[in-house]
């Protein structure tokens, strides 16, 4: 160990010790299972596993790198038959996970390049496009690092088909029956960014919507002018953990005032939300005058906000309303920051980005040795407990992203420690921010789900700030009260199996923590004691891959809707995972549905989660009455 960073050494010891503890669940798992969990959580050697056996050069590659997000990007996806031909052409038989003709006129593919399921991306583009290598009629390229397997595949394709007109190559991307009318802007993996995809029957995960409800918002005194029409304003029904939602979004801890109980939602900030309500006459006369009026309205308020954000819907974008001009006209008069954010999916994030864009964080600035800022950690139920426990140990803690607290910039500036959270939505933002916040140290920790991971996360943060002893003192009695209940529930869970259905072959990527808002589901369920079945799609492969076992986890393969329907009915599996609330494929198969909605953070959260999943797994309504509910799959019998 180096003597340079005693706090970091302390942090590393937490992991090394945890690994050696008698009741650590990791001790009971095989090396293969531990390696799988590390891979799914994206743990890299030298961080969480420093000092452990796995750190001796055996760390697995993370399975969900940023470029893999292209799996979830838009494009016309090749159907099974067309995909098989491209796999032959690239020499990647059974290895291509996604091959799409994009709106930009390229042919993108994502391939599994090793047995561990590591993904890499390559593409073909027009001859005049920039790329890695130029052919006569097309260009070869890649995204991220060039993997030798992808390089070989591209060169093989070049050797075989160079000179063939590129349009002709693109025309070979033939979708599955039913997908021939897909738009090039469709995301075939999404239920809302594609329409009736041929693969919809096997989609239990949602690639584009799940973050909503955990997404960013200002919690300071910010007035938001929503410059749009009423259709746009009603683009989303109120969400609440007390109401069904089409997607099983994770349960988020909201202030009591934010729970929807009817009526217009009060703004999350203590100031104003304004709606310009563009009508037909406004479109004709010019609707930007409404923004000016709204700004003047704010100027006349008794209680002034600290800043104003102007966001826009599609209509003013098309009519060309000049929000920036409105903001400029009013800034001096209001003497407030007026940010014309326009149309953006993450208004809070983008306006915060503008606020700190030019901010200099001096290297010599004074850091608070007990202050930590956590970046990108969604407000899962249970997060507050973790923050409170750190507070009890004398740690000053703030979370920035998805929320933007009004003291965010001050917290970032003064923190001596930055903890990043493994969720792809804020990965790039967190990395860039961390780099600007030097000399504050940055840690990426295993996410705090489950009893042991929560404990380790707490100890790691406290140790890095020199507060380990204080935290241990606080945790001792706290965990002693919780542990007997946890063990009792674990013994019940060991009698039950849960299941996942993966729509493609790369089941590891689907179950990676970064995709699931940082939640390491397989590891958490295994720690709880459940057995887990994973059903992965084998496509048209004549011979599906062999089944795999990782202690209590069993990976099997299915090829069509009839086979899946049969496997879902397996009486050994008490509940299947689905990110879709109204999942008739499961309820009408007599099965219960579990999701991230039941899974909370932290120590008490671990117990609450286990209780919730056990209750759900034991519910008998669907088992008893499924036959009265109707057909599970409308697609059955057509495969």
């Amino acid at each position: 160990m180096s003597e340079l960073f005693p706090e970091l050494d302390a942090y590393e010891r937490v992991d090394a010790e945890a690994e050696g503890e008698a009741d650590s669940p990791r001790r009971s798992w095989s090396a293969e299972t531990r390696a799988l969990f590390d891979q799914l959580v994206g743990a890299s050697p030298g961080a969480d596993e420093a000092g452990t056996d796995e750190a001796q050069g055996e760390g697995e590659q993370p399975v969900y790198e940023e470029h893999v997000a292209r799996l979830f990007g838009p494009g016309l996806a090749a159907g099974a038959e067309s995909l098989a031909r491209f796999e032959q052409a690239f020499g990647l038989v059974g290895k291509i996970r996604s091959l799409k003709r994009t709106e930009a006129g390229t042919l993108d593919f994502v391939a599994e390049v090793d047995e561990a399921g590591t993904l890499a991306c390559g593409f073909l583009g027009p001859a005049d496009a920039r790329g890695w290598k130029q052919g006569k009629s097309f260009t070869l390229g890649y995204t991220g690092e060039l993997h030798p397997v992808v390089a070989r595949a591209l060169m093989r394709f070049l050797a075989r088909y160079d000179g063939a007109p590129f349009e002709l190559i693109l025309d070979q991307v033939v979708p599955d029956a039913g997908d021939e009318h897909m738009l090039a802007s469709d995301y075939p993996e999404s239920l809302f960014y594609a329409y009736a995809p041929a693969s919809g029957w096997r989609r239990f995960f949602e690639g584009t919507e799940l973050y909503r409800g955990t997404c960013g918002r200002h919690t300071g005194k910010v007035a938001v002018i929503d410059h749009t029409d009423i259709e746009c304003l009603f683009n989303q029904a109120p969400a609440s953990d007390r109401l069904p939602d089409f997607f099983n979004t994770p349960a988020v801890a909201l202030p009591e005032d934010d729970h929807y109980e009817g009526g217009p939602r009060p703004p999350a900030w203590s100031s104003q939300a304004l709606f310009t309500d563009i009508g037909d006459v406004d479109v004709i006369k010019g609707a930007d005058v409404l923004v000016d009026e709204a700004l003047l309205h704010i100027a006349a308020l008794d209680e002034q906000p600290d800043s104003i954000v102007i966001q826009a819907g599609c209509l003013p974008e098309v009519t060309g309303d000049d929000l920036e001009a409105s903001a400029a006209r009013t800034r001096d008069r209001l003497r407030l920051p007026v940010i014309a954010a326009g149309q953006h999916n993450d208004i809070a994030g983008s306006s915060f980005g503008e606020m700190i864009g030019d901010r200099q964080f001096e290297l010599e600035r004074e850091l608070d040795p007990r202050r930590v800022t956590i970046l990108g950690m969604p407000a899962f139920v249970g997060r507050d407990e973790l923050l409170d426990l750190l507070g009890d140990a004398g740690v000053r803690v703030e979370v920035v992203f998805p929320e933007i607290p009004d003291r965010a910039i001050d917290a970032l500036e003064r923190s001596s420690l930055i903890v990043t959270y493994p969720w792809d939505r804020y990965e790039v933002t967190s990395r860039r921010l961390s780099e600007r916040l030097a000399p504050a140290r940055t840690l990426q920790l295993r996410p705090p789900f489950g009893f042991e991971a929560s404990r380790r996360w707490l100890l790691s943060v406290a140790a890095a700030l020199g507060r380990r002893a204080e935290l241990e003192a606080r945790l001792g009695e706290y965990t002693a009260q919780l542990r007997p209940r946890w063990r009792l529930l674990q013994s019940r869970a060991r009698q039950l199996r849960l299941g996942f259905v993966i729509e493609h072959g790369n089941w590891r990527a689907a179950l990676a923590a970064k995709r699931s808002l940082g939640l390491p589901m397989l590891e958490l369920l295994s720690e709880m004691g459940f057995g887990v079945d994973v059903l992965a799609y084998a496509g048209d492969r004549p011979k599906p891959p062999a089944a795999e076992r990782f202690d209590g986890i069993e990976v099997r393969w299915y090829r069509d809707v009839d086979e899946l329907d049969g496997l879902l009915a397996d009486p050994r599996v008490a509940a299947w995972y689905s990110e879709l609330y109204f999942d008739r494929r499961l309820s009408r198969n007599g099965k219960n549905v579990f999701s991230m909605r039941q899974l909370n953070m932290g120590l008490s959260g671990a117990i609450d989660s286990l209780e919730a999943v056990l209750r759900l797994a034991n519910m008998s309504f669907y088992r008893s009455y499924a036959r009265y509910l109707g057909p599970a799959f409308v697609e059955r019998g057509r495969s």
Partner: protein
Amino acid sequence: MIDGRPGPSSALKPDEQDAARALGLDPAIYEPRPRDRFGAPYRFPYQLGLYMGVNAIPGCFLVIDGPDCIYRKAEWIHGKHDLSSTLLDVGGRHRVASTLLHSGEVITSKGEAVSKRLRRIAQLPEAELVLVNAMPHVQIIGTQYDALIAAVEDELPQLIYEVPSRSLEADWIHGYAELLTTLARRLPLSGAALDDDRVAIIGLLMDRVEADHTANVAELERLVAGLGLTPASTWLSNRPLAHLREAATAKTLLALPHGVAAARALAARTGAELVEVEQPFGLRASARVLRALAAATGREAQAEALIEAELAAVVPRFEWAIPSFLLGRKLAFSGDPTLFDGLLEIAAEFGMEVLHLSAPCRPPAFGLDLDPARHGPVVPALFAPTAQTLARHMDAIRCSVGLDLVIAGCEFPASEPDPRDIRSSGRMDFGFPNFFHHALHPSPFLGFRGWAWFSQEMVNAMAKRARVPRARPGEAERFEHG
């Protein structure tokens, strides 16, 4: 009308001021406040009316030229207001479909995405009827949907119609009526002769397909059958296209307020006789509707016998409930404005006072009377106010005259009952949207049985609640400030 915007329409007319005073209300509470400008609208958009209509026609799909947000919007109905809705689908075969057309793509769009969506829907065996509409930012560029539809309709098996895009000028009530009118103008007629005994009910506002609205359908059809007539088709009734087309065989069209324009359009095509009626909401209104239908079909005697039998069946149950639970109660009602007149009559029969009427829409073209000659002093109704205006208005009534019961949907800005607060009003969730009260067992609110259900719900909402007293002089301001 008050909506926070300054203008002559905001002020109460002298007779409205007199009505407010007669009910013990201060006319000043109706004055617009500049601070309510830019507030959240208590008004639902046009396309939600289309969604409701599509939801209530199995096999009907709606393509909206616009971005992905139209799916999330469907949740105002699917799963939240309506647990029986099939608008969205876990397999992605949603009955509303977006073209994903964002603002940046609008200028170059020629509607190709609409054609692709129509072709995909055409492959779904459950699809029978497809409607096309556009979001406002697409609407303003004037895409020729009729031409797009004409280019594909010969090769696709479904009926495909454009519903006019009027989101910038109209709201959900108009959207629903416009959908019915489109069908009335466009559905192919069988050419079969009109049947004297067959009646089509046009304009039932089926905002969800749960057992409140399916029970409304059953109740109205039962009453039609009670006159010896055959209910041929009910628009809308959670029944498919084939059922809707049966309306063309009906000699008589019973036009409810939301279906008057549609019924007129259909009658003009088929030659059917039109009977335009009010909402059959309450005993008196239900009886009037029956008498109007009977007069048009020569069944007056049967109508009188039927009305007598219906009253004899439901009225006795309320003999003792009214004085204890309902008499003297002061209520607020917010919702479909075509129910206002029936509500006033129901309240008057029970000795209740209606101190607030509001609607999350603009005034409807049909089905609203509010004539003082019929009802006595009528509280001035608020149409599409801002939520802030409404909240302030409700607080003023609650703190002065007092309110025992608020009947409204869940977007109505009024607090939940607080047992510790003597001035807190009871709450009866009713209308659209209604996320917290579902009808999983038949519970109509139209017709005679509907009156019984509605009145029973008021009784149960009031049974445990003490009466809210009028504030003494000087108290109102104190209550308002907490």
